[in-house]
């Protein structure tokens, strides 16, 4: 059960009377809607390379973004000078998107009580940097100790404590503190004849620093090393259409890229997504239920409130194969007569919000992973996804599988190298022929980029079998 957050006892990021004056200034030329977004973000990052901490940095940035909207026209201005005169100038600039004159009425703001989906008691920004560096050193030792063929190890730790305040002329006022951290390790294993394989693992989320007592740096280092070593001596991947089985967790990146983006309301409104106008239609196998959920406890993509002041929600996007809904921010919802789904997110106060995903996953089915793999006579088991590319307009995707194995006679056998999954998102969805009961989220690794804005997201998938996927490989 989500707990209700206590009323904030600290003073707001910006005095509320000033926030109201800024809203009035942004409306002064006849805009229909105005919004003030205040953000303070303190972040720390450290990098370990070749056994030593190569860099450690930290920074704190505060700023205010003001948005004025008339129709589909948007005026956006920001300032990191919190001086009243500078902020009023900022609001007046955003107001210029409208060209009339108007005496705006008073704005009566009321705080929306929010559930809380993350309980971070000690802000990550206040944890001593020495403890963060220690995580990296432990992960590095564990990766090297795993196997002597593991040679190059790099580790990264990053966290942030981000406080936001959003107020708008609809009277909404919301505040949230969003802490986020991530520890990751990449390593290279060297085999015979100059063979090199890489491994990558890590995780985190909107969690207390204590999280790393369970999700230990040793475990992170060993898993990265295991991946690198596991595929040494791999044979070339067989090419051509075949049955593939995706391992649970991070494989959800495929769903995020090949389906999720196409359900974002800006692409829907502009008609550039192939899912536009298909509500109520069957777009996937009936085994497929896709959910975007901003309320996952401690999830990397979770939000108590989005960057427009609307509460994070759990949205069913595809249910038993039928398209049920899209992801709406305020602007695109308004323009198409819908309501916001709490999907308006932005990288920082320097950007206007866009409709974005939070934690996107495939709901579990009823088969065990063993049953799913056991039913495949000949196929490919994709344990770890590497990088990939997707064209949102047609759903075409290409993904590199960094750790893959042959499935022969219902069993996972030899590791293969150089496997690429090539396909079209909606086609792949229709070809889903088994969904496992092993619901799984990724460990907290993902950052999604869109229009130059990066936001943290979660992905997830149980074990899934997809028929007739084209695999690019160099083997026969």
């Amino acid at each position, binding site marked *: 059960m989500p707990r209700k957050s206590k009323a904030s006892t600290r003073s707001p990021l910006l005095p509320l009377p000033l926030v109201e004056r800024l809203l009035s200034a942004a409306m002064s030329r006849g805009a229909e809607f105005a919004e003030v977004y205040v953000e303070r973000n303190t972040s720390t990052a450290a990098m370990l390379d070749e056994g030593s901490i*190569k*860099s*450690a*940095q930290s920074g704190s940035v505060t700023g205010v973004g003001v948005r004025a909207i008339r129709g589909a026209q948007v005026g*956006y*201005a*920001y*300032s*990191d000078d919190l001086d009243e005169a500078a902020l009023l100038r900022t609001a007046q600039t955003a107001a*210029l998107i409208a060209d009339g004159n108007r005496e705006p009425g008073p704005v009566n703001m009321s705080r929306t009580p929010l559930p809380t989906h993350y309980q971070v008691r000690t802000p990550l920004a206040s944890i001593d940097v020495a403890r963060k560096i220690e995580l990296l050193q432990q992960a590095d030792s564990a990766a090297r100790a795993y196997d002597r063929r593991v040679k190059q190890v790099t580790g990264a730790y990053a966290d942030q404590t981000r406080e936001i305040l959003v107020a708008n002329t609809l009277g909404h006022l919301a505040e949230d503190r969003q802490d986020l951290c991530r520890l990751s390790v990449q390593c290279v294993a060297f085999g015979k004849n100059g063979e090199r394989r890489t491994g990558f693992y890590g995780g985190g989320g909107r969690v207390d620093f204590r999280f790393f007592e369970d999700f230990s740096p040793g475990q992170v280092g060993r898993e990265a090393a295991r991946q690198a070593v596991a595929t040494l001596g791999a044979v070339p991947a067989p090419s051509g259409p075949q049955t593939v089985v995706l391992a649970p967790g991070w494989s959800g990146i495929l769903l995020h890229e090949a389906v999720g983006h196409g359900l974002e309301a800006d692409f829907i409104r502009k008609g550039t997504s192939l899912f536009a106008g298909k509500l109520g239609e069957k777009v996937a196998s009936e085994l497929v239920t896709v959910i975007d959920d901003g309320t996952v406890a401690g999830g990397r993509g979770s939000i108590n409130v989005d960057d427009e002041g609307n509460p994070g929600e759990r949205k069913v996007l595809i249910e038993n194969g039928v398209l049920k809904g899209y992801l709406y921010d305020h602007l695109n919802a308004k323009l198409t007569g819908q309501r916001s789904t709490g999907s308006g997110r932005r990288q920082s106060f320097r950007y206007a919000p866009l409709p974005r995903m939070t934690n996107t996953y495939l709901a579990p089915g009823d088969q065990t992973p063993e049953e799913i793999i056991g039913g495949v006579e000949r196929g490919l088991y994709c344990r770890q996804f590497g990088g990939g590319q997707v064209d949102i307009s047609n759903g075409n995707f290409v993904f590199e599988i960094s750790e893959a194995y042959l499935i022969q006679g219902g069993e996972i056998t030899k590791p293969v190298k150089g496997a690429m999954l090539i396909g079209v998102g909606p086609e792949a969805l229709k070809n889903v022929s088994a969904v496992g009961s092993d619901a799984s989220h990724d460990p907290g690794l993902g950052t999604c980029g869109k229009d130059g804005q990066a936001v943290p997201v979660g992905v997830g998938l149980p074990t899934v079998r997809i028929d007739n996927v084209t695999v690019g490989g160099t083997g026969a």
Partner: protein
Amino acid sequence: MKLLDTCELLVTLARKAGAAEAEAYAERTREASVRVRDGEVEELHQASSKGIGLRVICGQRLGFTYGTDLSKDGLKELAGKAVALAKGAAKDPANGLPRGAQLGPRAHENVRDAVVLRKHG
């Protein structure tokens, strides 16, 4: 406060906090853009920002901090944090700020004079 004064103050604070070498970099930016579609302004964007970054070196160890709070308290915090970060980093003999001839032919002038010279031609 002028950016140059802010930088000088931050370098002084960093040395007080224990940095053997310190370098401050400050900038102030204003930018504007307008996008027009079919004769209508679709998007108007304006930004003003300022910020300061600090690099410190203590015993061949490097620390880096940045921030937007240019008040004296804000700068003090940056200086303290940068030195603390450097203490956690590894030694690297390549860490060091340029000095002497590395600074070019005007190395003998102090920074403030160089700025004045450039301003007046």
